[in-house]
């Protein structure tokens, strides 16, 4: 199937979906107060944006997401690479980590609130927990499964330590790592929204909470859509940058 035909089919599908949503509102199958029509929601998004209420909330959310993702992701990257490289390190940290891995990241929010208070600290901590494990696992596996011939060849050619890591180990582990980072980002995003719903004075989760308290359902649906769009957008961005630029040699 050609690319244009694929795009056509998908665009039509999206329009059909939105059309069904709008038609549902005209026929009034579901309570209009609870599920506002598509047009109402789009109007609401535009209205919130032009009034300047939406962008600051998005900014507040994204700051938390990036901070937590950066902290958890780099911790996972460093520990994972160390564990993949050195078996002693691996056996030392595996048991403690396996003990906390089955706990969903969001469950840390209660402890995080006690430890860091109700401000940004607790949310960043939870997001970092969400980002840590996917990156750790993929970095560990990526480094552990590098073809030893690559390492030996590079060593023979005089690469040691940091240049070896930077020029050989990282590129060889990159495909595995890219998957882990992608998962980590989507988990971070989910953790962000949930933790903001639980306790926040700003951000997209806070907007939903406001809608819930005021019974303002078009605000809720608008926020849900904006969150989904942001997640989608950052995922596409990641794909374009990471896969397009740095990982051209792996099949899509």
């Amino acid at each position, binding site marked *: 199937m050609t690319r244009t035909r694929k795009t056509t089919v998908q665009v039509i599908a999206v329009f059909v979906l939105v059309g069904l949503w709008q038609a549902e509102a005209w026929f009034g199958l579901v309570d209009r107060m609870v599920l506002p029509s598509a047009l109402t929601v789009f109007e609401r998004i535009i209205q919130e944006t032009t009034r300047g209420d939406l962008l600051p909330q998005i900014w507040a959310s994204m700051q938390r997401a990036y901070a937590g993702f950066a902290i958890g992701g780099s911790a996972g990257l460093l520990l994972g690479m160390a564990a993949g490289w050195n078996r002693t390190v691996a056996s030392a940290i595996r048991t403690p980590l396996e003990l906390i891995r089955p*706990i969903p990241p*969001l469950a840390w929010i*209660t402890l995080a609130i*006690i430890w860091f208070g109700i401000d940004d600290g607790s949310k960043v901590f939870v997001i970092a927990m969400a980002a840590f494990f996917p990156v750790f696992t993929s970095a560990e596996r990526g480094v552990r499964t590098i073809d030893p011939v690559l390492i030996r060849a590079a060593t023979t050619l005089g690469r040691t330590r940091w240049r070896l890591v930077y020029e050989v180990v990282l590129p060889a582990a990159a495909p595995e790592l890219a998957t882990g980072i992608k998962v980590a980002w989507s988990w971070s995003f989910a953790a962000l929204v949930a933790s903001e719903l639980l306790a926040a004075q700003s951000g997209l989760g806070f907007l939903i909470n406001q809608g819930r308290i005021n019974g303002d359902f078009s605000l809720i649906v608008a926020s849900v859509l904006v969150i989904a769009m942001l997640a*989608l957008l950052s995922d596409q961005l990641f794909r374009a940058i990471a896969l397009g630029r740095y990982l051209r040699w792996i099949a899509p």
Partner: protein
Amino acid sequence: MREPFTESTSDPRQLVAVDRPRSSERVLVSFVRRHQAAALGPVIVAAIGIGWQYASSTGLISPFLFPAPTVVARSIGTLFTRGFPLGVTINEHLVATVLRVVRGYLVGSSAAIVVGVLIGRSGVLSLAVEPIVTLARSVAVISLLPLSVALLGAGELSRTALIAYAVFWVAVTSTIAAVREIDPLMIRAGRAQGARGVALFRHVALPAALPRIFPGLKTAVGLSFTVIVAVELLGAQVGLGALIAEAQRLFRTDMVVAGMVFIGLVGFVLARALDLIEARLVPWADNLRQGQ
């Protein structure tokens, strides 16, 4: 660390090693060396536990923020006897959470397999739903909680619906992909043997697709557990999430940690359970994956 006894070798150096007398000290050293790696993890966990106990009980770190392991152990005991909040024992929390997960998971995954197979059979349909599935998966499930409560009430129905929603989109993605990727040769071979309709589906298509459906089903288990903990944190009377939320409101850090221990246990058991089911249900999965 190779064992010269078990290997037939012509390497003279190793033959010498066989003749060398082994004192008990030597045996001990080689034993420790051999099991060093495996023992390191537990040793470190024990060291952290002991250090934590010491620091917390002497006040080096705040016993309120970091309750000592013995304190947590006592709270776990309390959870079994008197319960927390008073009268609600851990059994009730566990049953409530696990039942919610199982209910939502079964609804979501069975719907996903049926819908996924139907969509996967058609090339145009699979293409058409792709952006819809991507968008639906991008929706943070927990952000739908207010809507689901408004539509379905604050009871179990809205919780089941949320878990089912989360499970559905993950499972439907892997089901569609699995059906699309069935080797056409298998279908043709099945037809050649006289299989038609349901029989073809039951004996050829489903066994061929199941190994690739399973990764999605496994991801969905973890996801459904995450969702239910979040839902319970936001508002429920019983359940593990409700337990730690209540403990946090009352600043009972020891109870929060005790609750987290059970959350970790349930998460572990759920993940392992699906591994076991997969091994029983699709023992041919490994072969297929290697053939990919």
